[in-house]
């Protein structure tokens, strides 16, 4: 499973992008389950965010959903921070 996260906006307006390929990872199962739950509560179109709030695109195996601060689910928040931290 290929998980990509793109973050745009924010006070600084600086984009960040990272991705994780779970194949061959010992924790692949955990990543996939987290990604599926985060993806399920995403939206098909970008939500109207709040001023200076981050906007996110979560792409799992080529399909994309959207979400925005501060209204993220726990799974979305966890997935986004893990991908941006551990991904390449």
């Amino acid at each position, binding site marked *: 499973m290929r998980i990509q996260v793109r973050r*745009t*906006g*924010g*006070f*600084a*307006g*600086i*984009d960040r992008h990272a991705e994780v390929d779970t194949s061959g990872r010992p924790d692949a199962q955990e990543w996939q389950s987290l990604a599926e739950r985060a993806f399920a509560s995403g939206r098909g179109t970008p939500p*109207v*965010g*709040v*001023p*200076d*709030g*981050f*906007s996110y695109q979560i792409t799992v195996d080529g399909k994309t959903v959207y979400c925005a*601060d*501060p209204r*993220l689910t726990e799974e979305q*928040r966890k997935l986004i921070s893990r991908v941006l931290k551990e991904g390449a």
Partner: protein
Amino acid sequence: MTTNGGFEPVFCTVVPPHVLDKLARNDDPALSGPARRTLMRDSELRGKRRVTTEFALAAAPTAKAPSDQPLRTVYDAEHRTALPGTKVRGEGEDPGQDATVNRAFSGLGATFELFLKAYGRHSIDGDGLPLDATVHYDENYNNAFWNGEQMVFGDGDGEIFLDFTIPIDVIGHELAHGVTQYTANLTYYGQPGALNESMSDVFGALIKQYTLGQTAAEADWLIGAGLLAPSVTGKALRSMKEPGSAYDDDVLGKDPQPATMDDYVRTGRDNGGVHINSGIPNHAFYLAATQLGGHAWEKAGQIWYDVLTGGELTDRAFFTDFAKLTVKAARERYGDGGEELQAVEKAWEQVGVRIL
């Protein structure tokens, strides 16, 4: 205003919107009534809702004049994301040990003071709205935002960004989003979104200058100075004096802001580049303010404030709509042929925004 049907024409043809705004708040119903109706009718014509939201309280029989003192509360999210978090400092309470809390608290006070002293505005809604801020939001959170009701500040990750309460202009920027929400309510996308961002940078910069007592010539015109971690190559996040020059770093990349319409950036990211193209109206404000000299909040700031709150700026305004209204406001407040009008016209011309 062609459809007033001869009803109270004095308010429709002579009185500028900012005066109407003031009249509408008058305690004497003979004065406030017609002004309020004119503003309402005006706003109905454009399908806007600001007057009803803004005057809902003023119209209530129990309404009284809002206080000249702010009503501030700072909360601590304790590195989680639930808002507002735990209350850590209220109005009238002494500073505590946490410098972040104290900075947020005094930043709220400075913002309240500028809007009141310079423009006679009582808090962000013009009616004494309590000012709430949450600090220590999430972990290593590299951002600050306005959620529609309050300000939220992250601590930064220490590698790229430091604590977002450090620059007072960032605090002012977030609160100014509240002022915009209660007035022109500029849509947060594309050009109206970039205007929304620019309003926050302009008033954020003015709050810093007011606090330091700086003239336009003395000010650094930077947004977010002191926010970048020491390892980052840059001086701030944005420069109103020289958009595009704030940083140039291996990790952050280069400041993408244009200074003129020639370099306007078309993009779908960042809500259509709201933090990018804001460089254009930001630079126009800088040019007008430095041309006029003295304290930037007094003349240039007053003109921008007149437009933001005057009721004619629509929520879908483009740069050119805004620019034309600043020209009109400069003329109405300072007279035809004055240096203010000239400075405003020249500023927009220099950044390539049409005013004719």
